[in-house]
């Protein structure tokens, strides 16, 4: 039996929606015991979204939720009830890590702030993830991940030239920030293994987004220039764009960096004369005539499928790839070869493939990672309240009756 990196680590996970659940899915898959603390009073919205089509709403039947919450347990606690909050505290006493992404002030209201919790568990690691962080004049603002890219300048810098500010796909930055949260917690845990000390992590989603925009801020603060929106263009690389291919809404991305790649592109497209053409003979000339060059390239791509564009240009060493849509992603040979998805047999939805944890780990075969089905709502009430906290069946029944466990 393979040992997993986080065996023996327990996470009290108050997270919901997307970012924290993604982070704790990663921790769970790597062997941590993740106890998702939820309730019917404040349902994780994702349990409702992504229902199987043509069926009545089933809180355990969202394949979307299930694809984001594998490797975890679920208990239902009403945190607004003093006994619910007290039980949550008891779970924290037996945990190493607490994760949460409620609006600022909620955990405090329930007596579950870091200051409260480190009294009962002195080496606790706790992460709070919110749009704008725990302090600062706007920290009270409510929002989802995508709002933070608007506030952080990302939308302002993304878009077609002359067009509107644009939002990024994939409910960016939610899932990205889930990865960062896992990284932050794993780093704090590494420090604790060495020193025995826990700590608090205040993560503001907008700040993570800004930490990934160095060029925009450098150009602005150093040269006084707001670079605005540049479509698919690059500062230096040319050609560098998304080109129409044969078929309806079919596209390929091509990026050329070196002179060697430029030569390979010209040869492959059958236009060696471009190498001597004064409009294209060096990088600055190509940059100055980028529109013209893009039009010429598109006459070639428009007669080919995106996959054909890729194979033909890659054979010559040019970075060309299809723009995949979801169908393309789910049927792409490279993703299939690397076995990126996991099809966990869930008792309600069956084995629907889900995105796995990225990467292949030589000492951690995928089959041994903790990809257990996402929990049904409250599935582990008895397991956790009875097994971990030692409550009797009668006590648990009373808590259910009093709507503490619900």
């Amino acid at each position: 039996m393979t040992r997993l990196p986080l065996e023996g680590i327990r996470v009290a996970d108050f997270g919901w929606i997307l970012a924290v659940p993604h982070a704790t899915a990663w921790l769970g898959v790597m062997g941590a015991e993740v106890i998702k603390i939820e309730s019917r009073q404040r349902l994780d919205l994702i349990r409702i979204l992504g229902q199987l089509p043509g069926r009545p709403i089933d809180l355990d039947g969202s394949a979307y939720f299930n694809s984001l919450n594998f490797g975890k347990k679920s208990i239902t606690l009403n945190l607004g009830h003093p006994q619910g909050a007290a039980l949550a505290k008891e779970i924290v006493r037996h945990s190493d890590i607490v994760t949460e992404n409620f609006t600022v002030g909620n955990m405090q209201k329930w007596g579950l702030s870091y200051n409260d919790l480190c009294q009962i568990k002195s080496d606790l690691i706790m992460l709070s993830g919110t749009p704008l962080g725990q302090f600062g004049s706007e920290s009270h603002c409510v929002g989802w991940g995508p709002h933070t890219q608007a506030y952080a300048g990302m939308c302002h810098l993304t878009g077609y030239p002359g067009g509107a500010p644009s939002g990024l796909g994939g409910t960016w930055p939610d899932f990205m920030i889930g990865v960062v949260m896992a990284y932050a917690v794993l780093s704090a845990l590494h420090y604790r293994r060495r020193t025995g000390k826990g700590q608090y992590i205040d993560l503001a989603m907008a700040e993570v987004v800004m930490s990934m925009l160095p060029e925009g801020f450098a150009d602005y603060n150093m040269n006084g220039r707001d670079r605005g929106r540049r479509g698919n263009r690059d500062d230096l690389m040319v050609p560098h764009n998304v080109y129409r291919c044969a078929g309806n809404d079919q596209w390929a991305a091509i990026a050329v960096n070196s002179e060697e790649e430029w030569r390979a592109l010209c040869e492959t497209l059958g236009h060696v004369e471009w190498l001597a053409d004064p409009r294209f003979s060096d990088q600055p000339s190509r940059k100055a005539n980028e529109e013209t060059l893009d039009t010429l390239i598109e006459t070639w791509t428009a007669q080919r499928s995106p996959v054909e564009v890729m194979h033909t240009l890659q054979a010559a060493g040019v970075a060309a790839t299809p723009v995949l849509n979801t169908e393309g992603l789910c049927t792409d040979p490279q993703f299939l070869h690397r076995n990126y998805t996991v099809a966990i047999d869930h008792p309600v939805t069956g084995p629907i493939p889900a995105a796995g944890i990225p990467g292949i780990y030589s000492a951690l075969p995928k089959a041994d990672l903790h990809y257990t089905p996402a929990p049904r709502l409250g599935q582990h009430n008895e397991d956790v309240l009875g097994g971990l906290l030692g409550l009797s069946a009668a006590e648990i029944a009373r808590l259910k009756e009093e709507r503490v466990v619900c």
Partner: protein
Amino acid sequence: MPEGALGDLKIVELAEMVAGPFCTKVMADLGAEVVKIENPRGGDLARQRGPFPHDQPHPERSTLFLYLNTNKRGITLDVRKPEGARLFRDLVENADILVETWKPGALAALGLGYDNLKAVNPRLIMASLTPFGQTGPYKDYQAYDLNCYQFGVLGYETPFNQVTDPATQPPLKAAGEQADCLAGWTTATAIMCAVHWRHLTGAGQHVDMAEIEAAANMIRPNYPFYYYERPDGPNRARLSKRQEWGLPWVWPCRDGYVAILAITDKHWETLKDLLDRPEWMDGELFKTPLDRFMHADVIRSLLETWLVEHDRDEIYKNGQALHLPVFPVQNLTEVMSTRHFREREFFVPQEVPGAGPVLLPGPPFKMSLTPWSLRRPAPRLGQHNAEVYGGLGLGAVEMAQLQEQGVI
């Protein structure tokens, strides 16, 4: 200064441009000791990219390079030369982690693959980060940030629900190098998993990371949606079309743009309050989240009519007072003057030769006990050769010889 969270980890970086260096930057910023290897012929290509002070290219003045390589020491080394390979092996022997972004098989061809290095240092964690990973039919294909963002479906969904005419609006990349930076975060997280496994077992391992997987990891919901909407079902087309996908969340208003997302019933009610409860919002078409999704086009035109008659900051202030998730779309002048970010001391002055201190992004998250820190600026090309090679026991004469041979 307190020790960083990763203060005991020694990392060797054999990477350039964005993805690999960003991975080791986020670890160096938490205290890891990183030795960055650059080729002696000009070094990291990011040095050529800028932005530069006054747009004057200079290999020691690229703010992209300076940002991506904070807190690292830098050496030059030609790993392809036999003597260079030997020195590389010595460096790796004393390291905890190697991060490399060479083409699959390229290091192994020099006798420096994981199996070779493991023999030298069984505790080594080696992370190989490439666009497509170490295995599979496309493993040898090339890709830049643009390609990975588009191959991972992120481009197909950008701009999100704002495409009005797919024929003239191609899939779009995000600003900067988002796929590359994301791959950096993802690799750092994977490395930390391997570090924890080493705590238990004492053994290292090889992490094979594909940038396209880091990107596909961002569109997790699409997998289940695709699989349970059968090929002939009505909804799958939605995932293969870029328009009419539902409501956008970037909206025009009278003097700019706002981001609004009112998916839940609660937020829809709040939005009604913000609009002063117009009759149309109580219509049969908009009762449930699904109804509103199906009639997004109707909502789009009616809501926009109201928004373009109102000012951005008023919508933000009044919306937030009602607990509606709404934020202004800010330009860079506005971001830099946002009081909130100043109070949090997010932007940190960083020295750029030829420009003086420039405000650049600081800590991506705040750790209470082991704060993010700027201990040293990015290295000049070969700045730490004497220090690092001296640490391996090389004398001045040997170093001069190696320099003459073009090894360092």
